[in-house]
């Protein structure tokens, strides 16, 4: 690895980790104010302009709170659990491509931290590791509500993981690759001359199944049974406080971020420019060329715009998570299982069969 690649790697990792970490307070603010406005309230609006400083202030509060460990817990596992939940959430983002390639000194550099051969399988594998954190938290808490919450979570994960995987298969078959960058590349161009060839248009059923399953995977409403405030106190994190609770909270938003990134990558053309953004490439490139000159300014412009359109797509889905949370009530447990096994699972299987048949007949 030479110098340029090393610098590029550092820049990528720094940018991704910084964005992920700083998205949490922003999302907390968006969630609190968004929910308030949807419920005809105003929400936190005192700390800083529009209340934007509320989240940093809360972080400070959480950091300085007493780090209390109840006497009846299994200490080692109890302390370990939040980290076990958070780390997979961070790791998953490593394979998500957030912009196209760029050539410097004849070397093609990918805007993706790790270009693994297993691609999407890595995401599916790592993202389901998070459930261990929840199980550990529930078990170590030595509390029946926590235990119920974590058991619910694992049952939910298993039920929805299947549909999640199967709904992705359709996209993998169409892209004929499990590399996320290839899947994005397969979504370029147009169908019927005007619709972007995005997964949502070529695989609408796969998209709906994936979207629903990712809500279940991230434990967000309407599938937040592992937490279920009104039923089991706070589920698996009942016994947690201060920064350890904040880590659970962060993990939830990280998972949301990863899920949004995956939805955008698989079904919304990933980092491909939003329609109409192509015109901005040259001006942006010229702007960037004022600050440093390496490679082709037009390429840099494209890279920046691609990162921006990826962020817009991810941002929209983050908002969508919030939007749905404050619209739909929680599912009952049997409804959740029925939906998972009797609706989504057959639907994704059928989608797979139809996709395979259409591909065999060369319709798509």
């Amino acid at each position, binding site marked *: 690895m030479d110098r340029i690649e090393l610098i590029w790697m550092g820049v990528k990792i720094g940018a991704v980790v910084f964005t992920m970490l700083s998205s949490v307070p922003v999302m907390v603010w968006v969630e609190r104010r968004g929910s308030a406005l949807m419920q005809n309230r*105003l929400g936190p609006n005192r700390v800083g302009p529009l209340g934007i400083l509320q989240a940093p202030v809360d972080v400070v509060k959480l950091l300085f709170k007493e780090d209390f460990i109840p006497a009846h817990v299994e200490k080692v596992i109890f302390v370990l659990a939040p980290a076990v939940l958070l780390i997979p959430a961070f790791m998953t983002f490593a394979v998500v491509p957030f912009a196209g390639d760029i050539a410097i000194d004849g070397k093609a550099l990918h805007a993706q931290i790790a270009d693994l051969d297993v691609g999407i399988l890595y995401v599916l594998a790592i993202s389901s590791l998070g459930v261990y954190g929840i199980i550990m938290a529930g078990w170590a808490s030595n509390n029946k509500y926590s235990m119920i919450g974590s058991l619910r979570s694992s049952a939910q994960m298993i039920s929805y993981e299947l549909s999640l995987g199967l709904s992705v298969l359709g996209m993998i078959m169409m892209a004929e690759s499990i590399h996320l960058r290839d899947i994005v590349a397969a979504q370029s161009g147009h169908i019927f001359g005007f619709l972007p060839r995005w997964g949502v248009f070529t695989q609408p059923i796969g998209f709906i199944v994936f979207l629903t399953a990712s809500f279940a995977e991230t434990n967000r409403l309407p599938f937040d049974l592992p937490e279920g405030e009104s039923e089991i106190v706070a589920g698996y994190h009942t016994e947690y406080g201060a920064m350890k609770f904040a880590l659970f909270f962060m993990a939830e938003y990280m998972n949301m971020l990863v899920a949004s990134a995956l939805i955008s990558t698989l079904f919304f053309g990933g980092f491909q420019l939003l329609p109409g953004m192509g015109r901005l490439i040259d001006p942006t490139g010229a702007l960037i060329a004022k600050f440093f000159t390496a490679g082709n300014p037009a390429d840099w412009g494209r890279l920046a715009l691609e990162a921006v359109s990826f962020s817009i797509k991810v941002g929209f889905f983050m908002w969508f998570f919030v939007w749905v949370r404050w619209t739909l009530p929680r599912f009952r447990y049997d409804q959740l299982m029925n939906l998972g096994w009797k609706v989504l699972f057959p639907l994704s299987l059928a989608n797979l069969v139809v996709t395979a048949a259409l591909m065999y007949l060369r319709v798509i």
Partner: protein
Amino acid sequence: MLVKSKPSLRHRFYLFEILTGLSITMKNFFFGRKVTIQFPEERRIYSSRFRGLHYIKAVNGVENCTACMLCPTVCPSECIHIEAGERADKEKYPVTFEIDILRCCYCGYCEEACPKDAIKLSAIYEMARLTRADGVLDKENLLVQRGKK
């Protein structure tokens, strides 16, 4: 009577219903009239019958109270404490008059019982205190005319 109606296909399909729900929340997000009262600047208007912090009505700087002891008798929380005395003109008056607002349940019976139109409940509802001792209003404090009753 239990009326069972089977939801229509459109309802059971969920997706359209979810979209309707999403549009309703969005409508509230943008156009909903926000009901929040921004407290220190804005205040809720209570009715004139609201029962808040007490005061003793004074006319020309002299309290109406004659220490008849009706209000401590009627008070269900037993939080009024009066020591009576005699003025130079032989009129009975309260030497000390204390109300423990931490015990008071704001029932307003004292106001109703008072034959002299003396003890009143104002519309003030902010009663946070730093110490328990501050929660006991003395006569001087009660003579602050907090309302127009």
